């Protein structure tokens, strides 16, 4: 609390000095993805993340939109994740703790920042991914993030699952709201983010014969064969200043010789 107060005070002082607010233009992006475990034909958790470059002492422009493409034939729809839904109003008012446990699909962390004057202020903010009621006939998830410094706030934003052309199985279209900080100060920028979609760290509950049982959701089913070149991911990031950044990656196919040795 004291730290937050000092930070805000410092920010206000810097602003009152009229120092320029810095933000880099045209950032470059990197995308990462991995499966845990990575075994064909088995259930897994998907790890994904992205990061943006910026000039030293600066932060990327505020992010406004992400289009994340994921590989074809990834069994997300049969993962057993998101069996319940959380209404946006519930998430906004009560946070993820107010949502049904069986709506939690993943977790993560975002590293965000702003530059006030010449002072970069950065923080880590936890992220939750929850299943939401469908939007306009499309499967929908909600992302929830809460931060404490420099701005004590929480945001939730929707991701809509849309069809995509091969070799992708779908695209998650995510609109990111602008997060104001202090009067006259820039919006918060995302510097990097990583999250998981899958059963790692997720516990669900079911009622069986009047008893509530805890269980771990099955997870995303990987196909029994690996696509040529691995499992492809691609993303397009749009920023408030109108710039765009694209990134792609692929999860390499597991070495079949390793499987034979086991």
């Amino acid at each position, binding site marked *: 609390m004291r730290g937050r107060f000092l930070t805000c005070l410092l920010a206000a002082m810097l602003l009152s000095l009229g120092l320029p607010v810095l933000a880099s233009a045209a950032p470059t992006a990197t995308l990462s993805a991995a499966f845990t475990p990575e075994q064909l034909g088995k259930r897994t958790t998907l790890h994904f993340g992205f990061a943006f470059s910026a000039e030293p002492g600066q932060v990327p422009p505020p992010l406004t939109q992400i289009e994340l493409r994921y590989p074809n034939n990834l069994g997300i729809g049969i993962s057993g994740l998101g*069996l319940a*839904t959380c209404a946006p109003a519930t998430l906004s008012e009560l946070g993820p703790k107010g949502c049904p446990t069986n709506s939690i699909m993943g977790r993560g962390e975002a590293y965000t920042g702003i530059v006030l004057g010449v002072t970069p202020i950065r923080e880590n903010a936890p992220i939750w991914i929850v299943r939401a009621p469908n939007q306009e006939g499309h499967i929908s998830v909600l992302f929830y993030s809460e931060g404490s410094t420099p701005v004590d706030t929480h945001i939730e934003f929707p991701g809509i699952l849309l069809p995509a052309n091969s070799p992708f199985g779908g*695209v998650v279209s995510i609109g990111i709201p602008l997060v104001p900080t202090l009067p006259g100060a820039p919006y918060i920028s995302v510097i990097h983010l990583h999250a998981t979609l899958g059963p790692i760290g997720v516990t669900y509950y079911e009622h069986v014969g009047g008893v509530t049982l805890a269980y771990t959701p099955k997870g995303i089913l990987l196909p029994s064969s690996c696509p040529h070149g691995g499992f492809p991911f691609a993303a397009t990031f749009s920023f408030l200043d109108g710039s765009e950044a694209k990134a792609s990656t692929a999860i390499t196919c597991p070495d079949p010789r390793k499987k034979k040795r086991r």
Partner: protein
Amino acid sequence: MSKALALLLCTGACVAHASQALKASDTAHLRYLSASGSLLLEEGQTSGTLPGRMRARVNVGATFTGNFVTYTRYGTIVGHGSATPHGSGTYESFSGTLIVTGGSGRYAHAHGKAGLYGTFNRDNYAFVVQTTGTLLY
């Protein structure tokens, strides 16, 4: 068989196949057999106008797509379909279109288009599929 008779038969069977139209409304209860990624192999009984057994491969993605074979008393009916999932939670409803592209036996020349509706159980991967349309054969 004389050449004239053979020509007559070929004219009837090969060139101008007389088609019949059948208004069909059926329900299939499919149970999960196996999966690879988002691709499910399902099988189950169909009841209604064309009772029999159906085997289907369904890709459960942002949209549901798949192909099927229905084994009836008088032959098979094959085709493919596509549907948009609507619901959320354990039971996900969907609606779309089913296209019949061929078959065997009585339905060797089958073709047609039907409405495709149903539910998908995300817990045990069972489908209930309803189709309503006109089958030409």
